[in-house]
């Protein structure tokens, strides 16, 4: 930035022939970053931004149930979408889903991060175990939980009956509230590894001297943790929080595999609801695109909040 301004300033005062040469070199200099960042820009624009445009455009089209495009429809799809009786409850459930899963994930991960950072025999094995749900496909993890929660053949009922927590089997995934709680648990379960490791990494960057100093000052453990460790973890927590919010908001396989959002739309979030609008039910791709645009607007709001949180000021360092 600085350089370019200087160059322009100098160029303005130069005689004509030199100025032409300088203009050339200025253009060259302005283009210099392109070989470095050009491919990234091309890939992002072509594969990430294009679908955004395409999606908005589709939300304005009339698409038949067999999938053929029948022409321009204006805001009709949005009108249909806001006429859906389930929409409000789906959006509220999405908020519960995102906030619930992310908060629980971070709180539990803080504990697991501490555990993984502590010294005890077999720590490495525990770290490996915690990694497993991260490496496993979310869909497959959701399927095994669905199987374990099965009313007829599931082991969850067997275990809970065995330890005396319930008297007779419970059809966990049929009651929308219970199903939602279990699915939120699965979402937490698959988010824990990444979050715990981000926090673990954060913990390891805290210099030992800081703790020494706190000890010399006579600070208690709780005090040390809340006054020193947590504030130092802030960057790690911010990263973990935003990545989790985005992942959890867009989480599709868990709900799709475990309840399909049913009965009706009683366990849908806006993401599964969007998919179902297009590919089941009346199969309206246009209305689904409208839902996608609404979802997208919600994400943009989250992004703006995040930008505020990290204090983006154009040139600021990340």
């Amino acid at each position, binding site marked *: 930035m600085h350089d370019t301004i200087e160059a322009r300033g100098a160029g303005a005062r130069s005689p004509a022939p030199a100025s032409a040469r300088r203009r050339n070199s200025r253009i060259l200099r*302005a283009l210099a970053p392109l070989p470095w960042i050009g491919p990234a820009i091309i890939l992002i624009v072509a594969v990430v931004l294009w679908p955004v445009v395409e999606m908005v455009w589709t939300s304005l089209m009339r698409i038949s149930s067999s999938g053929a495009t029948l022409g321009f429809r204006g805001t009709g799809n949005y009108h249909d979408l806001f006429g859906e009786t389930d929409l409000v409850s789906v959006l509220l459930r999405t908020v519960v889903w995102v906030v619930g899963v992310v908060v629980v994930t971070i709180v539990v991960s803080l504990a697991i991060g501490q555990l993984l950072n502590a010294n005890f025999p077999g720590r490495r094995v525990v770290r490996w175990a915690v990694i497993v749900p991260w490496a496993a496909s979310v869909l497959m993890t959701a399927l095994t939980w669905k199987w374990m929660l099965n009313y007829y053949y599931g*082991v969850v009922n067997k275990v809970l009956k065995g330890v005396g927590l319930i008297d007779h089997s419970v059809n966990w995934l049929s009651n929308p509230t219970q199903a939602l709680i279990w699915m939120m648990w699965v979402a937490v379960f698959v988010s824990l590894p990444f979050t715990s490791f981000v926090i673990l990494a954060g913990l390891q960057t805290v210099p030992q001297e800081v703790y020494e100093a706190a000890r010399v000052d006579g600070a208690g453990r709780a005090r040390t943790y809340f006054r020193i460790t947590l504030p130092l973890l802030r960057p790690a927590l911010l990263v973990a929080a935003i990545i989790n919010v985005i992942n959890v908001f867009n989480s599709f396989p868990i709900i799709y595999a475990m309840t399909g959002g049913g009965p009706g739309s009683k366990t849908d979030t806006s993401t599964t609801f969007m998919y179902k609008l297009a590919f089941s039910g009346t199969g309206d791709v246009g209305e689904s695109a409208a839902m996608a645009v609404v979802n997208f607007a919600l*994400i943009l709001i989250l992004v703006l909040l995040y930008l505020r949180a990290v204090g983006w000021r154009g040139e600021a360092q990340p």
Partner: protein
Amino acid sequence: MSSLSNRRPATVGRGVPGSAGRGRIVLLTAVGYLVAFVFVAPYLEMLLTALKPDRELTASPTTFLPKHWSFGNFVDVWKAAPIWTNMQVSLIVAAVSTLIALLVALPAAYYTARNRFWLRGPFLLLVLITQMFAPTALVIGIYREMVYLNLTDTLLALILVNAAFNLPFCVWILHGYFSSIPKALEEAAYIDGAGRFTALTRVTLPLSLPGLVTAVVYTFIGAWNEYVVALTITSSPNRQPLTVAVPGFVTSYQQHWQYLFATSLIAIVPVVILFIVIERYLIGGLTAGSVK
């Protein structure tokens, strides 16, 4: 390891050196193994189910262990469905998209970390914002774009989507690492007679190894687990990744949970091993980074 931990006492966060009594160690170990069990248990159940014969799957009350251990399920499953093809698809898509994301992200991240130029702000903002976009949210748009480009039902479409959507995260994290490495270190090597490229590969890249590892892991796992886009834009069985193929074992007319879970395990185990191998470098690299 033990000598190392002697020198650097337990970093238990609130860990006040010297206070780690024997009881505390026992407690930590117990809690540690309990946590480990909770994380592994669903996959253990996966394994036990994969080893049950057909008739035991729907038996109620269910049993924890198979009565007849059907190890043959792991052989039969290869014949029951073309899972070898699906596995190749998953691997190709995950590996190539990771490679592309990295090759594209590295120069961009390095250049933005080392230079200030007019496009820097807009570019970083673009990266920061698109980092928040997930294929799931845009699946309808992706689908329509691929229709337009005539790329539906191709591996290239899956590769491009996975590479592009993970690219911003890679750029971001690598940019962060490159920025944290003092330019002086590179310049020192440069003055020592190394070329700038050598300085880059000998000094900067090794120091940013944790970032590299994180970027690779993040992209690979993202692509390996990707479900919605593959579900929507692939239709031929030989171009579907495992995530799309696996649920096909349980349908209205047949329910082969044992095959579903056998395939899932076949898919999960190699990645878990990969992760365990990388974990050493990940944690080791992070520790090294924090000490220096």
